[in-house]
């Protein structure tokens, strides 16, 4: 199960709508081992494409150095599909490199840049196996116990 606060959920959806028809991508970082998606980091899609996304290699290094410095990990890795359903493609599955992350897919195929609901789904992708999980959106994450 992925538990996400409303503001982060809304920001991911807004990013996907803004970048439509290109794919949008980013991460939500959180303290290592906490499973708490706390810090949204929108990334530039270096591919600038409606059918592909890739973090720029320099941005990628900076992101991971930042997370290391803060003792964080990518709790959520998200991207949008702009013409297909919010389900991991064969490419998504083959390239999934974060076994601990929740992979969030947002589909903007229905509304594009416009207001209105989107498909928002989350998966675990481990060794090529996709497992969908429930997404629970809460007003705010509960206070950290650590």
């Amino acid at each position: 199960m992925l538990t996400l606060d409303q503001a982060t959920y809304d920001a991911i959806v807004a990013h996907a709508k803004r970048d439509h028809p290109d794919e949008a991508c980013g991460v939500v970082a959180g303290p290592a081992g906490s499973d708490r998606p706390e810090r949204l980091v929108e990334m530039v899609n270096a591919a600038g494409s409606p059918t592909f996304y890739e973090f720029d290699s320099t941005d990628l290094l900076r992101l991971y150095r930042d997370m290391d410095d803060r003792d964080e990990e990518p709790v959520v890795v998200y991207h949008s599909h702009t013409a297909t359903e919010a389900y991991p493609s064969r490419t998504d599955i083959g390239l999934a490199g974060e076994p601990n992350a929740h992979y969030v897919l947002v589909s903007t195929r229905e509304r594009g840049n416009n207001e209105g609901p989107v498909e928002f789904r989350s998966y675990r992708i481990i060794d090529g196996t996709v497992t969908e999980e429930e997404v629970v959106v809460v007003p705010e994450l509960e206070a950290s116990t650590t």
Partner: protein
Amino acid sequence: MAIEVRIPTILRTYTGGEKAVSAEGDTLATLIEDLESSYPGIAGRLLEDSDGGGDLRRFVNVYINDEDVRFIGGLQAGLSDGDQVVVLPAVAGGC
């Protein structure tokens, strides 16, 4: 000649969970050979062809002192004592 190599989560199964390991080599290619001798199987995750003939995998990023090796000679990029190598899988996909 010791080079620190930062290992991403997905490859830590090869390094017994270690986040960073020490290896030797005067080019990235020889460094990967040295890694393979200590952590068998890891080269196949970095190279298209694990016998050493292949290039770096398209969706594996390797940095030497924060420079993407693709811009500084790829597998032939030179290394010297004290350099830091970072390996990161690309975050990428597509519909």
